[in-house]
């Protein structure tokens, strides 16, 4: 067990890293499929459940039990492979990956080794304007293969929540045997300073693709989609690959970006100091934004892969593959072009929408009745800001596209204004109900009582005689100060346009 004095890591400023080194990225993404049953048995693959209730002899690895392949999982694997522009193997096998771990019932994982179901593909990712310059970056896919998930350990006692130092551990095998697709990129080189943005954009757009395929819930917070980030640095211009580290289970798009950035800075610190990078697994700490050393993963770690003798080879017919190709959702690039045209977005607006991971949200908000620009305005403005403050993905804010569309409809009807709309979002985060319920409960409707408005305008004019004189002299722009005073008096619940009209009428 290697221990690293993590608080003494030397981090090189990001810009300096790039002066001396070229980063190479590799991403391994595990997607938990949403099949009804597990990969190799008939147990329900549903999330949760009382511990150890979704189990049978096969997923518990009881002596004598045998696996049988879930056809639906193979179908999902093929569809993912096709959507990633992969070749689909005419013949492939499962293999045993042998290692001991208490949450793995057989002490081997049934996976695929040198014969993956899908291989040699690519995905074009669009970088957001902030992280890159809006360009498209091609990520080459090495392979997508099928495997089974392990059980889930809970380590009780001890300080770290990890197995070492725990008083005891509990294992829930409900997750054991749930079908996983592991998607592995080729080394991504040439991204330079955009490496963190490329990593984020890849995982985010891969998730959109998985959601569009309908093969997984793809929720990072529930572990349906888990990313491992491999990173290495090589001397600038050397064209070689350095020693890599693998940062495990990075649980949000934002963390993917941060983990890449952190590891680049840390690697550079180690290399600058004349030391070598240890090939190892590292743990990502969401709270502190750093990685710490996990188990050492030297070449000595030998999984003794061999073909699973209890399963016959998978040989998907070409007819079936073509049939599945016909079920693929629209190609993401073409779809983006179509939506941009439909929505009348500028290139910049479109890139920002994609880069913020908001394409699907905007699309669904428009589908729920909002104007495209309104949908974009909320998701990329108010909601993106709030997500950023909370350290969440905008999709995980708890605000749905239907909510946003309804809020915008209320604005369009004149029932509320933008300022009140923000208070509706406050209510939505607080779980106070639907937009309409929140408007009613919080009393947010715009005041249209002319008497009250007129009185407030009169009071504002009386309180600001200088401003009033300027308006009388024709400096209409000065009206803003009076409008502000009225809105303050009315606690924001006034129609600003009507207030302006009243001021000009009274001082005209």
């Amino acid at each position: 067990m290697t221990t690293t004095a993590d608080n003494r890591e030397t981090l090189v400023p990001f810009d300096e890293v790039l002066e001396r080194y070229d980063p190479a990225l590799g991403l391994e993404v595990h997607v938990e499929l949403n099949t009804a049953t597990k990969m190799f048995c008939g147990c329900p693959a549903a999330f949760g459940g009382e511990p150890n209730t979704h189990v049978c002899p096969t997923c518990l690895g009881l002596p004598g039990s045998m696996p049988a392949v879930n056809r639906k999982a193979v179908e999902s694997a093929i569809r993912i492979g096709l959507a990633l522009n992969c070749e689909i193997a005419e013949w492939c096998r499962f293999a045993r990956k042998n290692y001991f771990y208490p949450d793995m019932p057989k002490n081997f994982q049934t996976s695929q080794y040198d014969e993956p179901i899908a291989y040699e593909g690519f995905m074009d990712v669009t970088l957001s304007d902030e992280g890159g310059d809006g360009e498209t970056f091609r990520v080459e896919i090495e392979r997508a293969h099928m495997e089974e998930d392990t059980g889930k350990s809970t380590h009780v006692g001890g300080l770290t929540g990890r197995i070492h130092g725990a008083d005891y551990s509990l294992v829930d095998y409900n997750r054991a045997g749930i079908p996983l697709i592991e998607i592995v990129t080729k080394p991504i080189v040439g991204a330079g300073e955009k490496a963190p943005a490329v990593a984020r954009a890849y995982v985010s757009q891969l998730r959109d693709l998985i959601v569009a395929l309908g093969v997984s819930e793809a929720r990072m917070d529930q572990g349906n989609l888990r990313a491992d980030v491999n990173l290495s640095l090589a001397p600038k211009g050397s064209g070689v690959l350095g020693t890599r580290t693998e940062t495990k289970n990075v649980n949000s798009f934002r963390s993917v970006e941060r983990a890449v950035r952190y590891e680049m800075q840390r690697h550079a610190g180690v290399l600058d100091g004349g030391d070598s990078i240890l090939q190892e697994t590292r743990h990502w700490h969401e709270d502190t934004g750093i990685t710490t050393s996990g188990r050492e993963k030297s070449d000595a770690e030998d999984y003794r892969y061999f073909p699973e003798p209890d399963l016959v080879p998978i040989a998907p017919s070409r007819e079936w593959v073509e049939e599945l190709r016909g079920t693929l959702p629209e190609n993401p690039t073409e779809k983006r072009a179509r939506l941009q045209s439909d929505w009348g977005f500028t290139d910049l607006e479109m890139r920002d929408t994609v880069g913020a991971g908001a394409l699907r949200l905007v699309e669904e908000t428009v589908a729920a009745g909002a104007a495209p620009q309104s949908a974009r305005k909320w998701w990329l403005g108010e909601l993106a800001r709030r997500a950023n403050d909370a350290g969440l993905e905008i999709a995980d804010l708890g605000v749905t596209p239907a909510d946003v569309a309804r809020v915008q409809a209320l604005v369009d009807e004149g029932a509320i204004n933008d300022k009140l709309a923000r208070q509706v979002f406050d209510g939505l985060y607080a779980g106070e109900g639907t937009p309409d319920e929140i408007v009613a409960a919080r009393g947010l409707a715009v005041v249209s009582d002319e008497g009250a408005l007129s009185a407030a305008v009169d009071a504002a004019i009386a309180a600001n005689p200088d401003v009033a004189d300027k308006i009388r002299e024709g400096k209409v722009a000065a009206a803003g100060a009076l409008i502000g005073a009225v809105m303050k008096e009315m606690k924001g619940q006034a129609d600003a346009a009507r207030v302006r009209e009243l001021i000009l009428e009274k001082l005209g």
Partner: protein
Amino acid sequence: MTDLRKTAAELADDLASGATTSVELTQAALDRIAEVDGAIHAFLHVDAEGALEAARASDERRAAGRTASTLDGVPIAVKDVLATKGLPTTCGSKILEGWVPPYDATVVAKVRAAGLPILGKTNMDEFAMGSSTEHSAYGTTHNPWDLTRIPGGSGGGSAAAVASFEAPIALGTDTGGSIRQPGAVTGTVGVKPTYGGVSRYGLVALANSLDQVGPVTRTVLDSALLHEVIGGHDPKDSTSIDQPLPALVEAVRQGASGDLAGLRIGVVTELGGEGYQAGVLARFHESVELLTKAGAEVVEVSCPHFVHALATYYLILPAEASSNLARFDAMRYGLRVLPEGLDAPSAEDVMRATRDAGFGDEVKRRIILGTYALSSGYYDAYYGQAQKVRTLISQDFASAFEQADVLVSPTAPTTAFPIGDKVDDPMAMYLNDLATIPANLAGVPGISVPSGLADEDGLPAGFQILAPALADDRVYRVGAALEALLLEQWGAPLLDKAPALDGASR
């Protein structure tokens, strides 16, 4: 009146005619076990209550005018490597002491559904690794022909139970000869079906690509009857063959008529000669002679890669076994040993201590061999190479079956050897399976039929018949023919020559 020396087919007739009942028959078998198993030690666990309950159900069914199968009511013994719901399943290993499976192996479920009362679980070499049952963690089984000798292995318990009339029939498993070799050395019949012909679901795997469940009986007809109960496709076993079994009982009736005109019998050059006991070879050649007289044509065939079969087998088997046995880690079932001298042992410490205490030497030897054969840097030279030779052996079979309809050889090179003779010499022990291993590597079916007693020691020898994959009916046809011809010659079943067992006087 229940006569346990009758065959299962005869007992089934007696049940049908009302001459006996399943309860009578099952009780008689339980009594016989109580009487002689102290000397034989064929059983690790006897389930008198469960067997009698199943027997009562069978009798009630019959009284109501229904039967679940031809063998309904005939009791059976089950090798302890097959999962039995509610009955301990140890695989002859300390590491599974006390484990009671929550489920039935498919073959066990089929046997139960066919109405056969399960008498109990039979002894075996630990995890089916061995040719003598001396590697059982629960003591050695003794050969009914000579209690100082081994009953073969790994399925010595099932063979000895049948040979000592404790059970009319039994289930065995054959990975490299574990049904056929015990059959040969106990004067009984054993069949290894085509790979995939019988479900392996619930068979605690030794080597998944080699294992096969099969019948252990005293006659060829009984094997066919049991084979038809347990055989056929099982969706829970992906490697099981999705097509109907050939008509096996029909093949036996055909063969027993004694007419083998037009049949080509291939004598395999590489399976005989040096290393084979003279008396075993003498009985083998006489049997070939008898088959010739019945109209068969004899050809000599060469399978040049068979000489590498043993080496190939001892790379593939340990490789698969090392992975299969990884699950015995004290976490979920079976033995759990806490290491001494450690206050707060980790999961790894407990695994290590348990596996150290729970596995015997032969199991550890094969785990080490297999782990090595699969290791990075050695895989290609060992496991990878073994798979290539395995293909060559299959090709040898394919060309041999172009020249002959069945291939024949002695089942085992020697008769039963004395207990203790080879237990410390793994290579000498492995050589017992020289003639049986090729069939497992190629997945073809095979049978061992008693061919008589060797002159040197008066102990049984076996005659092996192999057929192409899916042609299990051929081994039954030729086996039944040989059995009938020999019975005619001997005038009585071979087992009549075995000494009477006088209870627990050993």
